[in-house]
């Protein structure tokens, strides 16, 4: 609060200072010569004075923190906008002004201020206790480009002015500046050299950035840098084109378009900072109390953002979160310090070649660490600090089996609502649509592939030995289009960890393998599903929600307690679908209490009672509209329609069939799913046969 008040006061003072300076300069200068263009240099100087004041007043703050602050980026942006406007209009002002001496004095003073400002900014940042830019190469290059452009711009601009860039007698009008200028020293020869060198430097920077950009494999990172990269390349190209065109067409040398470059870069940097800031703000909202309502989240920091991830860890600990820390020796010092400082809130487990080290005890497998299984109830999150989730663990665990055990452990704690903070290498990261809360299991590609491997190996062990060879040949055949690269050693199947696979492909693979195995008479579909269901249950996975529900379809759930099953599927799916809804004949409050349904699931109550805000009049048209609107907003939603028997009684089975066909047609154009719990005994046999023929039944 105190800091906020201080900040507010600081900004108010800055605004007042700007206005005062502008007023004072106007009073002093405008009576001498009232030319509208003189307003711009006056504003520019006032603004620069304000920036100097702000920098001085912020000097006690850590620059790296300031740079994360949107306000600082805004400041940078404002400065760039003002500078570029000034840059273009001062020249016009000078050309049109009759009082050239005043205009030039102002211009020179403005240039001096701005140059000092920039030098001061750079020096200030370099003198910070922590390095300002613990960023990757691209960001450093971009900042370098920004600074070089502006720093070189001013001297060349000044030289341009002084070396006769204007149609006036230089000696008469520039007086002492002419004496000091390089024109006398033959600037006419130096200037083109400076210009060409600068152009070559820009071109080199662009080439280097292109190479860096091309090396980015990760879509998430690439998206962020696209703005910066294409902005830079586009504007430089545009600027060069204009400069060359104007030079050859009109014989005029102009460099003022660099003002445009600075504006664009400021926008780009600001945009990037705002995007990053938003992600960090999401994390801020978590508390130890509210975290258990989520299905668990993974906060993945890219390798270059280690500082940020450490800051976040400290932030969580300060908030009262309890964390288990996994790291290799390279980060050991940091974590030992953290573990010491937050002794009652942390457990530090070191990853080594032999396995895991907790205190003075060593364990080969995570399963052997006593007491870890009880921790899910006592802690809020895990930090996995290593070079990558897979590499170090593979290195320390020796076998893929141990890696799977570790993943299972992570998954179990996530299911219980814990969070994970993990810096990972980009190529191991798969991020789906950023808007929704990700189910972290499905984010980690190698894990998905290993789950497939584990499932197939388990299945392999359960089928008859005489059929095993055929089983492997089926999988090999499917390798071409469905399964990632598969190998086999001593009856044990291996899948390529780097293979391309995500949640949807994984589910599709499981379904297709089952169908093929049944066709080949290796194992019946029913048995196959039973085995898979058992395997999925080990991860707390709902097999029906994950594998058996295909997108764009209506699935009837025919279970012992169909409504309960449908709702459980929905709750599970809410972890990886963007939105879920229940339309039910039962009062939502009763459903919520009975099935412990999370708050992020929307409800509609099929009733003609209009005084409830969740009421939906059971006209089929209105139900259809509700469903259509929902899937229009969330294309991969899951909806449970509980009360098909009621609707059939009300409207007649044939009308309900018509309704279901219309809904299915719409669903088929999306990735959404409609789940309908049904008790077949309530319907006529004929009606059930029609439903079975038209729709999928999960039973």
């Amino acid at each position, binding site marked *: 609060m105190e800091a906020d008040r201080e900040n507010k006061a600081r900004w108010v003072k800055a605004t007042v200072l700007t206005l005062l300076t502008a007023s004072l300069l106007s009073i002093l200068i405008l009576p001498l010569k009232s030319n509208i263009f003189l307003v711009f240099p006056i504003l520019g100087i006032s603004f620069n004075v304000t920036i100097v004041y702000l920098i001085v007043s912020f000097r006690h703050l850590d620059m790296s923190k300031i740079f994360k602050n949107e306000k600082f980026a805004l400041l940078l942006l404002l400065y760039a906008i003002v500078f570029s406007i000034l840059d273009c209009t001062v020249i016009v002002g000078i050309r049109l002004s009759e009082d050239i001496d005043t205009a030039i004095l102002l211009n020179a003073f403005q240039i001096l201020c701005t140059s000092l400002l920039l030098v001061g900014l750079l020096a200030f940042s370099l003198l910070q206790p922590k390095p300002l830019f613990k960023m990757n190469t691209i960001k450093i290059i971009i900042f370098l480009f920004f600074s070089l452009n502006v720093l070189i711009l001013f001297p060349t601009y000044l030289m341009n002015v002084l070396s006769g860039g204007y149609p006036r007698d230089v000696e008469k009008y520039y007086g002492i500046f002419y004496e000091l200028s390089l024109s006398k020293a033959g600037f006419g020869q130096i200037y083109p050299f400076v210009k060409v060198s600068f152009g070559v430097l820009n071109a080199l920077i662009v080439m280097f950035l292109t190479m860096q950009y091309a090396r980015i494999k990760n879509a998430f990172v690439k998206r962020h840098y696209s703005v910066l990269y294409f902005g830079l390349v586009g504007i430089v190209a545009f600027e060069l084109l204009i400069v060359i065109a104007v030079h050859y067409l009109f014989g005029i040398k102009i460099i003022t378009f660099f003002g445009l470059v600075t504006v664009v870069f400021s926008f780009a940097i600001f945009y990037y900072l705002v995007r990053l800031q938003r992600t960090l703000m999401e994390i801020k909202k978590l508390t130890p109390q509210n975290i258990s309502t989520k299905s668990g989240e993974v906060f993945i920091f890219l390798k270059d953002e280690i500082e940020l991830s450490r800051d976040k860890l400290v932030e969580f600990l300060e908030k009262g979160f309890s964390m288990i820390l996994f790291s290799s020796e390279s980060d050991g010092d940091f974590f030992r310090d953290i573990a010491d400082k937050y002794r009652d809130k942390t457990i530090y487990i070191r990853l080594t070649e032999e396995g895991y080290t907790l205190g003075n005890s060593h364990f080969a497998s995570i399963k052997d660490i006593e007491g870890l299984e009880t921790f899910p109830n006592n802690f809020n999150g895990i930090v996995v600090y290593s070079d990558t989730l897979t590499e170090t663990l593979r290195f320390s665990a020796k076998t893929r089996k141990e890696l799977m055990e570790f993943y299972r452990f992570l998954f179990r704690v996530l299911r219980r609502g814990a969070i994970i903070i993990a810096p990972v290498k980009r190529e191991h990261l798969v991020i789906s649509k950023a808007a929704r809360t990700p189910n972290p299991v499905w984010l980690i590609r190698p894990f998905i592939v290993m789950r497939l491997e584990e499932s197939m190996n388990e299945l392999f062990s359960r089928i008859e030995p005489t059929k095993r060879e055929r089983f492997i040949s089926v999988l090999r055949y499917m390798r071409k289009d469905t399964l990632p690269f598969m190998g086999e050693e001593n009856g044990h199947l291996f899948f390529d960890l780097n293979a391309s696979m995500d949640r949807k492909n994984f589910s599709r693979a499981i379904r297709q393998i089952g169908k093929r195995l049944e066709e080949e008479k290796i194992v019946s579909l029913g048995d196959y599903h039973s085995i898979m269901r058992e395997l999925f249950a080990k991860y707390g996975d709902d097999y029906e929600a994950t594998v058996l529900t295909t997108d764009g379809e209506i699935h009837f759930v025919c279970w012992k307690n169909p409504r309960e099953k449908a709702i459980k599927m929905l709750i599970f799916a809410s972890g990886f679908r963007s939105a879920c809804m229940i339309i039910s004949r039962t009062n939502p409050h009763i459903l919520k209490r009975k099935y412990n349904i999370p708050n992020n699931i929307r409800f509609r109550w099929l009733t003609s009672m209009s005084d409830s805000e969740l009421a939906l009049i059971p006209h089929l048209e209105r139900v259809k509209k509700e469903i259509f609107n929902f899937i229009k907003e969330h294309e991969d939603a899951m909806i449970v329609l509980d009360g098909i028997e009621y609707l059939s009684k009300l409207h*007649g089975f044939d009308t309900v069939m018509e309704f279901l066909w*219309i809904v299915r047609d719409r669903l088929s154009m999306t990735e959404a799913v409609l789940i309908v719990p049904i008790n077949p005994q309530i319907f006529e046999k004929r009606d059930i046969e029609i439903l079975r023929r038209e729709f999928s039944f999960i039973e």
Partner: protein
Amino acid sequence: MFRDSIKGLERIFHAEPPQGSITMIVGKPGTLKSSLAHAILSSYLWKHKGEKAVYITIEETEESHIRNMKSLGIAFPKNQYFIKDIASFKFEIAPENDFLQDDKHFNFIMQEISKPFGLYSTTAEENFPRLMALDSLNAFQNLFLIDARRLRFRMQDFFQRLRHRKISSLIIVEGDPEEMIPEYFMVDGVIEVGIDRSHPQMPKRYIVVRKMRGTKHEMAPYMLNITENGLEIGEPLIGWKK
């Protein structure tokens, strides 16, 4: 008038009927025929400030219409929407008889009705209304004890004059839409409104376009919903059997 009036009607009419079309709104009692006509005209006028409309009512008074529409959330734009109550001047010319018996009375009524539009005069008002509603044709015909064929002939002439003046008209007819009446063939469009009572606990109001010359339109029935903003067209009916 249709695509640019009440919400959802543009889903039924894929194109606007030509200016000067005469459209019948037919339905049984209590199916919101008058309300629909009011809603279409007033919604259109709110969006087109320079236009005017006249609503000719035979049986109900102007005050009664205003009161009913207020209850449905339909508001009339001032100085654009005029309700002409025939009952008020009918009394002047035939206070004792319920029925007007000769052509003189018919002519007088027609001229009174047509005054705003200048149908029977050689000089037209500037900026005369281009929209009209007649509520209802049955009541209008019941005013006159004139031979039915002659009356029909005069009505046909009236419709032609409306078309000639390019006045788009809504003619309300009370009755069972399934029963064919000769007037159906005189008009350019027929809109049916009704209540689907196939499930007594869940009655649904609907609107369906039976005919609209020169205009692409949906043939399926749509829900006609009463909302706080007046009438709106809802979703296509599911399971409607007619």
